[in-house]
């Protein structure tokens, strides 16, 4: 056997960088076209569950019903904060500089919530049950950030 010698540690920095493109699907495309072009937010109604889901989806996860574009219903624009938090750290995956205030907001007429940002608000004054409304981005491109954030009503 060769003599044992201490080679120490050896570490190498690398990245895995993948350029992806995710399709919203036919139901999601309806949602985003209406958001982008009309500043309207849609959910989808499942008749058999008697519930309106956001985001709109083509299969009801609860009862497995096939849903169609005819089941799209406008929801909001106002809604209610169900929960919230704030992060002060920075990460490259953040779309904007910290602090970021996150919330789950149930839009009027919907039975499930939307995770999004809160803005124009003092964090210490946010509470569960607070009423909020969306602030739309000036330039919209069929993206979740076409809603810039929600702010108190």
């Amino acid at each position, binding site marked *: 056997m060769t003599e044992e010698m201490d080679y120490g540690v050896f570490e190498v920095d690398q990245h895995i960088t993948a350029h992806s493109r995710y399709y919203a699907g036919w139901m999601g495309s309806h949602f985003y076209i209406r958001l982008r072009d009309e500043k309207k937010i849609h959910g989808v109604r499942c008749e058999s569950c008697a519930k309106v889901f956001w*985001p709109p989806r083509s299969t009801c996860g609860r009862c497995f019903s096939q849903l169609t574009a005819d089941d799209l219903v406008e929801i909001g624009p106002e809604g209610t904060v169900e*929960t*919230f938090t704030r992060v002060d750290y920075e*990460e490259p995956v953040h779309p904007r500089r910290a602090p970021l205030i996150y919330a*789950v907001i149930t839009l009027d007429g919907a039975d499930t919530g939307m995770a999004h*940002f809160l803005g124009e608000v003092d964090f210490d004054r946010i509470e569960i049950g607070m009423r909020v409304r969306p602030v739309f981005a000036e330039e919209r491109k069929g993206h979740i950030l076409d809603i810039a954030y929600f702010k108190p009503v």
Partner: protein
Amino acid sequence: MSDRVAIVSVAQTRFSPKRADLNYAELAYEVIEQVLTETGLTIEEDVDNAVSCSHDIWDGQTISNIGITDVIGGHLRNEEKMAMDGSTAVYYAAIGILSGEFDCTLLLAHTKMSQTNRNIVNNTAFDPIYTRPLGFDFTSAAALQARRYMHMYCVTPEHTAAVAVKNLGNAMHNPAAHNGGRYTVADVLASPHVAPPIRRLEMAPDTDGAVAMIMVSEEKARRLTDRPVWVKGLGTCYDAHYLGDRDLAECLALEKAAARAYRMAGLTDPAGEIDVIELGDEFSYQELLWLEGLGVCERGRAGALLESGATAMDGRLPVNPSGGLLGGVPANVSGLNRVAEAALQIMGRAEGHQIEGVKTAVAQGHTGFCGQHHCVIVLTRD
């Protein structure tokens, strides 16, 4: 053919914030060598299946079980990777043995959290169309769940802080844990918010490590040991994906997974029949929420259960005597570690943190953010 499945050996690395000296295959071999040596089993003669658990994105390698094929004995043999939490690897390995297809399965979970950034990794677990672009990670998502749960069930910051105090204290007695410490509720509440209401001392730290386990058929277990640990019940369940799809204060998937596991194990009174629980407390509030999901107390009563001292090391239902994930266990490894710790309690080999007279132990693990998938394993002894 076997009607029962036993755990006959477990090994864990000493968990550490960073193991710069080893790559993940070498880290894995540390524990694989231990379980094979302890049982005297060999890959060639005995082991006929292997189940690993980690993730490509954590390992930085596509099809990352390529990296552990050699050490787990996968060359020209069966090896599969559970792309979920390690608890589900136990569930799947048990099913393989119950099917009659396999007799002896080597399980492994490994992750080196130190080699990448958990928030970037976990951001990719959010749907890319509606949620991921907002920059979410598991901490910000957990904070939403924590606040909702605390609001709906009157859980106080003192309750969640007391979970951290208990588990970080327990971890001091666990030689595998690296994050133990003696803290007070005031210390925890004085630690900075990471994402309110979650504070620095209330979240599992970045950790490197591996766990191995050997599971066998009843017949093989009888030949190997006179103290087998029986897998008596198991259950899994998926919950909805989107953060807003469910009331985050609820944990339907855990309730269902637990019901499945208890029914199989014949447990009708979990609070009375379970002697110890090891669960996935990635964040302190989760211990309380998951205890309620496991049905050992009524909804909203976990805080009071904790205050009563019942879940302490010397309580009537100790929870995470190992120190849990707060004590420092890697992501993905966490669930296999929960089952391993529960098994060690039954074997009477939980060095430094042994609970007396454990007959029935329950382990819980979860996958994704806010508990999107749960797995519950019930272990017993003869």
